[in-house]
């Protein structure tokens, strides 16, 4: 202390006195300094007041949003069952890797690290992120679906290295029966931007799976269920700290179909085993229930789980057998001889023929300056309606058609459900085509040629039908004139097991007072199978009398292929083979329609498939012999 005071005090006397005034001035200046400090204090307090009191609630909300993540929990989609309750489609959990951009402070770095783990390139991952560029940052972007257990374990264990990355559990579809009924069921896919635009945003958000095709799309509202919500507290790195609250997801409603898995499978296997492209339709004739609806070749439905690759999609698109087309309703074909029932009904209804009418078939028919051949060049001789149907005599129906006229044929074709959608719950159903004079004038800008009526009468010409239309026509003939809307859904069952929707037969129209005519047609169809000269007599099932009709639909009328052996004709020029039938003959229960594209002949290409279906359907009663006893 002594030392410290000495040096300054030596000088002190000299300037302490004169310094007094200037010191006072300096000290007064501190008042001004105080004013400046007060000014800053006021500014700071006002700002705090503004942030905390005026805007306090706003920032409280933002703080809440900062730490609370509302994540949605995807509901298990409804199952799809067959008529016996067997599961055709169910769910399993899929573990998806998702990125919450808001929580990731270094998206680039995270994706770089994530690439090798997921086996994806950085560019692919960025692509996923970019696709979601217009969604809010707090919404997760799915980077990869359905990772395996090892990847899952690795990511969970090292989660601190991947900021903003989350594992989400999403139920995905499993198909216990493989590709069975894929044409009916359809598949799911990520919701597209366009779909999202039109969707109810309270239900859908980006990255959701949505039905893209088939029942998955048509019954989306039933199947999807309701999303659950989960409120979790996260820290700034996006790691979940604790779960606060949540709403359980509500599973979707189950669909029980009218389909019988066994029938569907038998039909599908028969078609696939013979590498037949085409369609099989099995209907209950007295209700319109669809028992089986096969379209081959089938798609590999598993390929669509988690998104189909571009390559596989292109392969499906390019396939000449058109696996993506549901041929049951989307395939339109000339009906060939199965159309003769329409011509028969028209002839009977118009009174130009009756059960006693017999016409002579010399093997061809001369009309105008052209000769129209019967498929049997040696001719059928004298045939009545029943025999004409049974032996599929073209000459008989040329004349019936000519007498009724094309518009008359069209009238009854329409009554039997042609030229219009059957209304089954399948997508993009085609109406087919029932030609009339007016139609030709309008579309082709040409006058109808009478000769063309002859072609129409035997199912060639302009006619186009779908397999489901033929099946429905067969059912209508079998049940005596009731045209049902074919249906696919037996029940809709909610998660508590309550039935929300129950199948009711739906009559589209009834053809009244024709029961006698239908009976005559049925006799003719029975003749096809049971008759000595029936075109499909080789399909006969011991103990099960049934009735049907074969058809061969010409694809091209090219003379150069005439007379060639079947297998020498190029595939795409081969004729389509039709076979449609109902059984049992006396008390019809089901109708079976088979179309084999380019299958040459109805009886050989399509018939065996129908026969197998019938044998299975009636297997129990065949064994017991109860069917033949009725005869």
């Amino acid at each position, binding site marked *: 202390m002594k030392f410290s005071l000495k040096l300054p005090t030596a000088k002190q006397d000299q300037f302490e006195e004169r310094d007094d005034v200037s010191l006072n001035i300096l000290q007064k200046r501190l008042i001004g300094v105080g004013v400046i400090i007060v000014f800053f204090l006021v500014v700071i307090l006002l700002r705090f007041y503004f*942030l905390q009191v005026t*805007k306090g609630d706003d920032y*409280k909300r933002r703080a809440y949003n900062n*730490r609370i993540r509302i994540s949605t929990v995807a509901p298990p989609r409804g199952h799809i069952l067959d008529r016996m309750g067997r599961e055709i489609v169910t769910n399993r959990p899929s573990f998806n890797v998702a990125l919450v951009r808001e929580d990731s402070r270094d998206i680039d770095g995270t994706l770089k690290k994530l690439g090798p783990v997921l086996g994806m390139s950085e560019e692919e991952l960025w692509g996923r992120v970019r696709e979601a560029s217009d969604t809010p940052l707090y919404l997760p972007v799915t980077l990869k679906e359905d990772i395996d257990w090892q990847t899952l374990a690795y990511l969970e264990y090292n989660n601190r290295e991947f900021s903003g990355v989350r594992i989400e559990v999403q139920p995905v579809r499993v198909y216990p029966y493989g590709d069975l009924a894929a044409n009916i069921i359809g598949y799911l896919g990520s919701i597209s931007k366009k779909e999202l635009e039109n969707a109810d945003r309270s239900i859908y958000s980006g990255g959701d799976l949505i039905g893209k095709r088939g029942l998955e799309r048509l019954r989306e509202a039933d199947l999807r269920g309701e999303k659950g919500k989960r409120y979790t507290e996260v820290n700034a790195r996006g790691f979940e700290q604790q779960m606060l609250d949540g709403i359980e997801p509500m599973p979707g409603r189950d669909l029980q179909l009218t389909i019988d898995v066994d029938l569907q499978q038998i039909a599908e296997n028969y078609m696939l085993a013979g590498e037949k492209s085409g369609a099989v339709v099995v209907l209950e004739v007295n209700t319109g229930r669809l028992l089986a609806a096969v379209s081959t070749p089938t798609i590999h439905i598993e390929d669509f789980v988690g998104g189909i690759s571009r390559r596989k999609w292109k392969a499906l698109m390019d396939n000449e057998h058109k696996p993506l087309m549901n041929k049951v309703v989307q395939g339109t074909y000339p009906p060939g001889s199965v159309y003769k029932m329409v011509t028969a009904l028209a002839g009977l209804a118009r009174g130009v023929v009756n059960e006693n009418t017999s016409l002579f078939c010399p093997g061809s028919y001369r009309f105008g300056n052209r000769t129209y051949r019967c498929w049997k060049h040696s001719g059928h001789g004298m045939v009545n309606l029943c025999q004409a149907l049974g032996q599929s005599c073209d000459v008989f129906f040329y004349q019936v058609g000519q007498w009724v006229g094309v518009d008359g044929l069209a009238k009854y074709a329409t009554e039997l459900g042609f030229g219009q959608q059957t209304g089954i719950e399948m997508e993009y159903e085609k109406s087919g085509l029932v030609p009339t004079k007016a139609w030709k004038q309008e579309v082709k800008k040409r006058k109808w040629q009478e000769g063309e009526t002859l072609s129409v009468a035997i199912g060639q010409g302009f006619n186009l039908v779908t397999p489901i239309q033929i099946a429905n026509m067969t059912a209508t003939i079998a049940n005596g004139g009731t045209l049902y809307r074919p249906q696919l859904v037996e029940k809709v069952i909610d998660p508590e097991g309550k039935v929300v929707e129950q199948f009711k037969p739906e009559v589209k129209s009834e053809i009244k007072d024709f029961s006698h005519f239908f009976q005559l047609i049925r006799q003719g169809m029975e003749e096809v199978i049971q008759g000595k000269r029936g075109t499909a007599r080789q399909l006969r099932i011991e103990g099960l009398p049934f009735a049907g009709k074969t058809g061969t639909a010409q694809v091209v009328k090219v003379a150069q292929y005439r007379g060639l052996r079947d297998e020498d004709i190029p595939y795409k020029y081969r004729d389509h083979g039709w076979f449609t039938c109902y059984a049992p003959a006396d008390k019809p229960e089901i109708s079976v329609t088979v179309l084999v594209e380019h299958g040459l002949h109805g009886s050989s290409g399509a018939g065996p498939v129908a026969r197998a279906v019938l044998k299975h359907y009636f297997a129990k009663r065949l064994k017991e012999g109860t069917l033949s006893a009725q005869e």
Partner: protein
Amino acid sequence: MYRIDRRLLEHFDVILMLLIVLTCTMALFNLYSASMPSPGGGLAPWMKQSIIMVGCFILFFVIISFDYKLLHILNYPFYFIIIASLLLADAIGATAGGAQRWIDLGLFNFQPSEPAKLMMVITLASYYARKEVSGGYSFFDILPPLGLMAVPFILILIQPDLGTSLMLIIIFASITMFVKLRWSAYVILLSLGSGAGIFAWLHLLKPYQKKRVETFLNPEHDLANQGYQILQSKIAVGSGGLTGSGYLNGTQGHLHFLPERHTDFAYSVLAEEWGFIGSFIFLLIYFGMLFWGLYVGMTSKDRFGTLLAFGVVTLIFWQAVINLFMIMGFLPVVGIPLPLVSYGGSSLITTMMGLAILMNVRIRRFNPITGGNH
């Protein structure tokens, strides 16, 4: 040995001491909350800060037992030690945050740029106290202090620590303006300053430093980095509302939304947890301490005491204003701590030394010649 003057004890300023102790206590409590959950590994920040704080109070009483006039002499070794430390930090200092700012002292990383600020205050106060010019200082009068400031300024700037080096300029400007300059000196200084500023922008500033300035001018632009921190701070502060979320109940800090939550943004935690009312009370006490410091300056017995008091108040005040402005979203993130509140040994020791000098001036306010008090 020396005996302690009885008048020293009589003049011990209880109010100043009370304000300092109150501020330090509240700051430590806040730091406890701000360091939750503990980063793990070694002592928790609040624990370290408490230990240093105890050391600071011992240092405090050591400093007030010596006459502040001794600083006229001590200033020289002090200056050279700081310059040497800065050189050492620049040369071999441990790398932290991409900048060479630290010397590892075990308990804490010593950051010589912090005491450099106090050293600047003492140097300028000493110079202006001894060289008094009537009618204001001319440009040539302030060349020596300008030179004394330039050396540590450059050493800190190249660390690089733009914020702290600018603090030196702010302290220099404040004290120099306080002692009054001639108009001619203002003109020369301003033109030199703006010339240097433009040159620095074009040639000296690192890209991240430019970015900070740009972010300040357009805060919403770069939300991911700079703006993000400020926004998070505003959210934390604002979410406190009127009454706050309650001590230890703040969510933004604890969930790491708030960056640097126990250092630069420690006050955001206080504001979130105590709300506007808590903020208001704390700031009144904190600024009360500064006002009391001005009062110390007004009652000092000599020019050196007044300048020291003003310098210490300036040192704390500007750092507080810059830090609070940053927290409230008025300024970019510049890395200036809130003295006493932000975690950091160097800053705490520097501030406590400054406050000790303030107390020193206060208890020696009696005039040894006249024996009267101011």
